[in-house]
């Protein structure tokens, strides 16, 4: 039995077992937790690449857990789309895990670190589970694992984190309920939970009221989970007050995994025809996404807390992804899937920069960025790259996903959507240049700013374990940009649903 055959199972089992073992490792030698967790996530990353190659070479993988036949047994089904998402999730988890060491040491009491890594691994398990699951109920189970781990990790942040997390628990639970109701209704109608099975059985039932209601429940449930406008209210608080490395992980991956579930439900479980013709879901999603982009961007302008600003930008970025999907054409869908990757890397980079500033300055207001070019030149260079990418200047990654998204909007003749995307680029330009000015230029510091003393301006970078992940994502933004054509032609073009 070779590893490749078992990789789909291993990619869930491995982090799950690692998270349990981690408690034992922690009670023996606390210092070993970090390398242990990093090693486990490194193995996951390797497995995900392995799976991706297998899918590219041999097509979709159907893996039966314990050898049981679907629809009775649990099936893991991996095609180009979720193999791609799994790579994104596992690599981002790994990069942020590497980054977390120093930041967690500073933000958490020492005796909590082993639990931190345990929950962190559980979160990774949950997200990887969602991506590889082949049936809608297992997706629910893993959604809940992810969410519970997420609540816990967010709650250990600063003073206001428990409250933010509590809000998130309530909203998240409502979302999960809706999702579960959707699953239940489909089960009543079809007697199956398997995605492949469902997509075969459902077309005959498209005009059943129960199926329509199930679909609506799915959409609302997922919309809450991905903080899709106007169901986004839990997100800014939760992501602002969470520990730095947690924000970086959840912001870059959790919404993306949720978006993946949305794609699965709308285009695999149900057919594109259903989601656009039978119910006007794509139109609803499109206009909500339009609102998400506009309002997310505008609300971001009003923030003085850097992480909160990023949270609102994230809401707009979720809008990008949904908007592209709603267009119902190849270009738009390509843009969305590409943006899942690009946004994960960009947002992770920005949140890690936020963490680095918190690590050195103890605060993360926009004014705390003043004069950081002398103190943290490398971090700030990475920040500049990410900022330029958010604005969408070629050849950074952000440009290319935006290119496809706008091209898709033009092809669908949805001029307002194209305008919204450009508008958001402009707002991002304002947002980020406002900060870059503080970082690089003296005169912007206004009156009353004390000319910094010698030690203030001296070189004082974050530790290498934080710096390298930041750099990896920043360089990644440029490399992914230059290789976006390759990524599209070898992976993303196969994810586009038929009929697009």
């Amino acid at each position, binding site marked *: 039995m070779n590893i490749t055959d078992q990789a789909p199972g291993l990619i869930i089992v491995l982090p799950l077992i690692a998270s349990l073992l981690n408690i034992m490792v922690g009670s023996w030698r606390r210092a070993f937790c970090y390398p242990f967790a990093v090693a486990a996530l490194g193995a996951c990353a390797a497995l995900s690449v392995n799976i991706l190659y297998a899918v590219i070479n041999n097509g979709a993988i159907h893996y039966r857990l314990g050898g049981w036949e679907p629809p009775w047994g649990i099936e893991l089904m991996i095609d180009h789309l979720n193999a791609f998402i799994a790579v994104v999730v596992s690599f981002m988890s790994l990069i942020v895990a590497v980054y977390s060491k120093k930041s967690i040491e500073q933000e958490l009491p020492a005796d909590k670190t082993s639990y931190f890594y345990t929950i962190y691994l559980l979160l990774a398990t949950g997200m990887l589970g969602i991506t590889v699951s082949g049936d809608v109920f297992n997706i629910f189970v893993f959604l809940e694992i992810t969410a519970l781990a997420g609540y816990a990790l967010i709650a250990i942040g600063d003073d206001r984190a428990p409250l933010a997390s509590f809000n998130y628990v309530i909203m998240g639970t409502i979302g999960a309920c809706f999702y579960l109701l959707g699953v239940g209704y489909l089960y009543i109608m079809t007697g199956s939970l398997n995605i492949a099975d469902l997509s075969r059985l459902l077309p005959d039932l498209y005009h059943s009221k129960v199926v329509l209601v199930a679909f609506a429940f799915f959409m609302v449930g997922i919309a809450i989970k991905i903080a899709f406008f106007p169901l986004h209210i839990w997100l800014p608080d939760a992501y602002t007050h969470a520990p730095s490395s947690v924000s970086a992980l959840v912001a870059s991956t959790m919404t993306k995994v949720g978006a993946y579930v949305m794609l699965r439900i709308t285009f695999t479980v149900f057919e594109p025809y259903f989601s656009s013709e039978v119910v006007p879901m794509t139109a609803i999603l499109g206009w909500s996404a339009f609102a998400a982009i506009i309002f997310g961007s505008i609300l971001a302008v009003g923030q003085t807390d850097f992480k909160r600003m990023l949270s609102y930008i994230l809401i707009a970025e979720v809008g990008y992804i949904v908007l592209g999907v709603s267009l119902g054409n190849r270009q738009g869908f390509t843009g969305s899937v590409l943006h899942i990757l690009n946004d994960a890397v960009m947002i992770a980079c920005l949140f890690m920069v936020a963490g680095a500033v918190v690590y050195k300055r103890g605060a993360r207001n926009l004014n705390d960025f003043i004069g950081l070019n002398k103190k943290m030149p490398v971090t700030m260079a990475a920040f500049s790259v990410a900022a*330029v990418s958010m*604005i*969408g*200047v*070629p*050849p950074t990654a952000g440009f*290319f996903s935006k*290119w496809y998204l*706008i*091209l898709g909007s*033009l*092809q669908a003749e949805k001029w307002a959507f*194209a305008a919204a995307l*450009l508008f958001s*680029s*402009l707002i991002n*330009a304002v947002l980020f*240049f406002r900060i870059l*000015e503080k970082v*690089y*230029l*003296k*005169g*912007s510091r206004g009156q009353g700013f004390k000319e910094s003393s010698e030690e203030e301006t001296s070189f004082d970078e974050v530790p290498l374990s934080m710096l390298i992940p930041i750099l990896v994502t920043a360089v990644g933004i440029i490399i992914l*940009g*230059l*290789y*976006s*054509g390759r990524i*599209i*032609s070898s992976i993303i073009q196969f994810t586009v649903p038929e009929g697009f």
Partner: protein
Amino acid sequence: METLISIKPVLAIAVSLAAVLLIYLTGERSKNLRETWTILAAVTKFTIVASMVPSVLNGKILEYTLISIAPGLSIQFKVDAIGIFFAALASFLWIITSVYSIGYMRSLNERAQTRYFACFAIALSATMGVAFSANMFTTFLFYEIITLCTFPLVAHKETPEAIKGARRYLTYLLGTSVAFQLTAVLLTYNTAGTLDFSNQGIFAGKGSDLLLTIIFVLYMAGITKAAMMPFHSWLPAAMVAPTPVSALLHAVAVVKTGVFVVVKVVLHIFGIDLLQKLGLGTALAYFASFTIIVASIIALKQDNLKRRLAYSTVSQLSYVILGVALLTPSAITGGIMHIVLHAFGKITLFFTAGSIYVATHKTEINQLDGIGRKMPFTMTAFTLGALSMIAIPPLGGFISKWYIGIGALEAGQLPIILVLVASTILNACYFIPIVYSAFFKEPIKDHEHHDEKHNGLSESPAMMVVPLMLTAIGALALFFYPGVFIELARIIMATVT
């Protein structure tokens, strides 16, 4: 037309990027070594560009695809007549400006010189990128890089005033290019299915007239670097930058990138025939005429020398657009020739403004009475530059205005002749008084600086005076020997008509 694969355009771009690295590595430790890299890069860049000129004159085109990212999105270079025309101009003037920069920055003991020289080098790389780009994506890419890397140059002094100017600079250039130019590029791709420049335009038989008109308007609104009204006010705001930046970038590289891209859009995206059919050429010509006249009138009222020059630039840039928009052979030749003729004249004027500032710390025109006696070389150069702007033979500026005038007659647009005449008079009105008061008025008695220097010369350093003399002589020489430039302009004409 023969096409060769050559890596030379990439080298021409890369050489100043390599210099950036060396400039940063050397840093403040050894200023002389650091400046050596700049000069070396400038000379190498010009040599590489010059070495491509003979092949282009022989009717060959050099091509190189650096990377093809996705369908329609490839970083690709093509050295044709118009590209080499612009590249040769910018890279030649970079050598002179580098020498001048060293003199200027050191005399004033400016701060952050490493960043200054590094950003300058990147700006020139990106300018080469625009000049040699083979498609609209590559153009857009380098166009944006120019904006980003000149931002620190405008904000150089980091005073609140400089920051304010830089903000306006960025808002206009980045804002319009994302909002309008990018939209235009996307619509172009969506309509034509390609972004590659072609001598006949790429829209033949595609898209409705309305859509094409919208795309054209979006391009014109989005290419703000050309400083056409109403999107011109970033240029006067950018005058807070050190003078060499205003000289090379805001009289040559950046603004000429703008008009260059306009020319490319007119000739290589739309094509002469299509624009003629849509009647957009004439519309653009009158739009440019408006800018020419109004900017000149505003220039009259400016007392700050650099601001007056900036408005003069706004006005003169529209000559290029006017020439090309008339769509007749002579007018296009005139417009394209104006890119180089205006460059030599205007860079001279900015050099002299910097020279006056370094020698006397004067920035306002009313302070310049009698300065010609103290700074005869500088003010002689100024006079030559001014005469070239006004277009008095035997100075270069005359040639382009003459051709544009002929072109207007060919196009049957008599009102354009009036525009040219009016603008010439206005140019004279705002330049001649400066020359007059510099040479013929008595110097104002200066209470703070006592008389010890009053009678003698007090020129700025040789590293500034020699460059400005050179460019002034260039403006003169181009009238007699437009040589290679007119040759290239003919080739451009031959290919697009």
